């Protein structure tokens, strides 16, 4: 196990935690205009994610920072190569952050902030998946590690399928969270959305799996050819079965959320195992242009210092993250947004 491999694992962990945590508030944002009837229910949804979403998003920023530090070539290739897509994600994150902070203070622009919250949730939730699809599928690169395809090539059917699947995954995850946090009619509505979106997601996940096996055989061969790949397949299937079981119970909201988190861990593991030892495989250009873990990694000392920082500070972060979830645990009331 080299330091570079450890960092491949840690980056995968950071991004998986990001999807589990920010996933539910992005999903809640996508559902926001559809699920909430009236100002009170809108307030409940915002308050249900209010104390958490900002901290959740930091997992992405830290993950991106870790990729920059540990795998500069991957950071440089993906961010410059997927330029417009990344910028749209950025604009989404900006307007979303501001909308949540300003909505409460600014009654006269409430429609603007509601729209910004929805769009700012939808665009990242969709495009991060499209980017992941391209990273699994592979992209054309030159010898320096620059993306040499066009913007439209990124919007290929496979990557779009991964994007839509990812969006749906986050929507059902967000609906599960809202079911946990809400009461009465809003809860019943959220729970219905949670079931429907889960089944749509399940169909899409089957389609994505088949598409991967048929068109990205490198990835599926990696998964099915390695014990650890089978392990994540089992984790994924266990998560699916557990979630389905909970969906048939009246009080299954929290446990179905846990099931959804297990599904995300399984899928993230499958994606990571499928790509390893590539971080971004080459497609249509010589294999030597692939950004492998070894080729893309930073020097030994950088990786070591970062590892020490992670070992010291990640537990601290986990402690106070747990603290804030404990503080704001339980059903959200309409008045909770009145700070």
């Amino acid at each position, binding site marked *: 196990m080299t330091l570079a491999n450890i960092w491949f694992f840690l980056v995968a962990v950071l991004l998986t935690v990001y999807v589990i945590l920010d996933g539910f508030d992005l999903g809640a944002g996508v559902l926001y205009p559809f699920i909430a009837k009236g100002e009170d229910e809108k307030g409940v949804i915002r308050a249900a994610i209010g104390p958490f979403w900002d901290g959740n998003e930091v997992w992405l920023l830290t993950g991106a920072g870790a990729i920059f530090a540990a795998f500069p070539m991957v950071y440089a290739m993906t961010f410059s190569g997927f330029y417009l897509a990344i910028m749209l994600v950025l604009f989404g994150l900006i307007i979303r*952050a501001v909308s949540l902070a300003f909505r409460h203070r600014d009654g006269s622009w409430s429609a603007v902030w509601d729209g910004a919250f929805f769009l700012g949730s939808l665009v990242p939730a969709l495009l991060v998946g499209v980017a992941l699809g391209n990273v699994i599928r592979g992209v054309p690169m030159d010898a320096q590690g620059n993306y040499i395809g066009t913007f439209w090539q990124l919007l290929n059917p496979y990557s779009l399928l991964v994007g839509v699947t990812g969006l749906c995954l986050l929507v059902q995850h967000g609906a599960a969270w809202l079911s946990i946090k809400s009461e009465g009619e809003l809860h019943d509505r959220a729970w219905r959305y949670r079931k429907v979106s889960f089944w749509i997601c399940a169909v899409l996940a089957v389609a994505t799996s088949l598409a991967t096996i048929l068109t990205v055989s490198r990835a599926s061969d990696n998964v099915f050819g390695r014990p650890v790949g089978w392990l994540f397949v089992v984790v994924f299937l266990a998560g699916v079965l557990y979630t389905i079981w909970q969906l048939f119970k009246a009080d299954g909201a929290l446990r179905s959320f846990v099931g959804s988190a297990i599904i995300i861990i399984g899928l993230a593991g499958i994606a990571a195992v499928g790509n390893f030892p590539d971080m971004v495989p080459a497609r249509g250009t010589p294999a030597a242009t692939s950004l492998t873990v070894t080729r893309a990694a930073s020097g030994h000392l950088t990786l070591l210092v970062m590892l020490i920082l992670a070992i010291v500070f990640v537990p601290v972060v986990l402690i106070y993250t747990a603290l804030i979830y404990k503080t704001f645990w339980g059903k959200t009331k309409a008045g909770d947004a009145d700070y």
Partner: protein
Amino acid sequence: MDALTLARIQFAFTVGYHFIFVPISIGVGMMVVLSERRYYKSGIPADRAASNFWIKLFTATFAIGVATGITMEFAFGTNWANYSRFVGNIFGAPLAAEGLIAFFLESTFLGILLFGRKKVSKGFYYVSAWLVWIGSLLSALWILIANSWMQTPAGYKIENGKAILTSFWGAALNPSIGPRYFHTVAAALLTGCFVVAGVCAYYMLKKKHLQFARQAIIWAASVGLILAIAMPFLGHWGALVVAEHQPVKMAAFENVTDTEDGATLWLVGWLTKESDGTYDTHGIGIPNGLSLILHLNPDARVTGYTDVPLADRPPIQATFQSYHAMIALGIFFGLVLLVTVLLHILKRLENARWLLWVLIACIPLSLLAINLGWMAAEVGRQPWVVQGLMRTSDGVSPLVSSGQIWTTLGLFGLIYLVLFVAWLRIFVGIIKKGPEDTAEMLEAEKGIAPAPAGAGR
């Protein structure tokens, strides 16, 4: 325009915009800590109302600061891919550390400040205010470590065309981090003092919330005065480091063309371009002053920028003017704060309406000063993106087209304009509404609502 120019415009615009909100957050964050401390000790509703007021101003500004800060973490990769590949080994680590150590702290405990007033104890709430503020100071530390490394790179070697880390502490504690961190944070706190003082001055002019305003303004003015007095020393420390490690930047600050013994210190001046690419200074200066303050010797040698070829020199006029305008504003701020404190002691502050207006004007002026300082530091480093190691023109993403950057630049312009208008409306709205009326709060706490007409037992 070519992609390089557009990428530079986009970076300068987005960072400059971000740097409006950050100093206000750091500065008002200090006020939040102090006012929350007061409430923690006294427990009276008036103090809670005062603290809530600063928290509202703080959180509205903090939100837009955080949101626009994400842009930078993305921009290195999107627009400066060659730069990212070259420095990623060193530059990425502080960014990751900033996320891990600072962002998590800020964002988590910001949740407590926003939603926790009724949920957590007074002590927990007070500690949360501290942690958010400490988080913002740590965030400033890590990003300035990254930026200072670009000014005075250290702890690295060049291998296969990349900068590789050889000493973590060498890179983190590079020669310019000390003065640059303390100078920047002091400037941010000073900006915060002017926001506080300006808000209080507004209430004094309107004769509203006077009790609240009297309490806060003297605090802001005295802390501000201390900072304004410390600033020349911090700035001087920074100038000594610049003179030693970035002599061409120093030469641009004071338009020292040829290396000379006994260089002039300019108080104010205008530069005219000569045929050989150098500049002539027309203005008021202290002969031998620069040599004196840099080397404590009026005849000491100061490097001029003609020591390096034309292609290695920064834009002289912009560097000179932003540097001198920053210093002039700094001196002005010191005088304003001195007069404010004196008039307060003489109990004539509230009648000095002209001074109250000046204090309000100092809010945008302090933001201007801090942005001018940033311009002087960054423009003065050109043409290098990493001093002496990589040119800005070599750091750009090679395959991102100008059409793509035009698109995003347009979107940045549009979105940032809307956000600025929204922020300003909300910021001014909070100020106009003022801290909550404490008598009402007291009644609400006792559960005595005014009885509706006709209601009786």
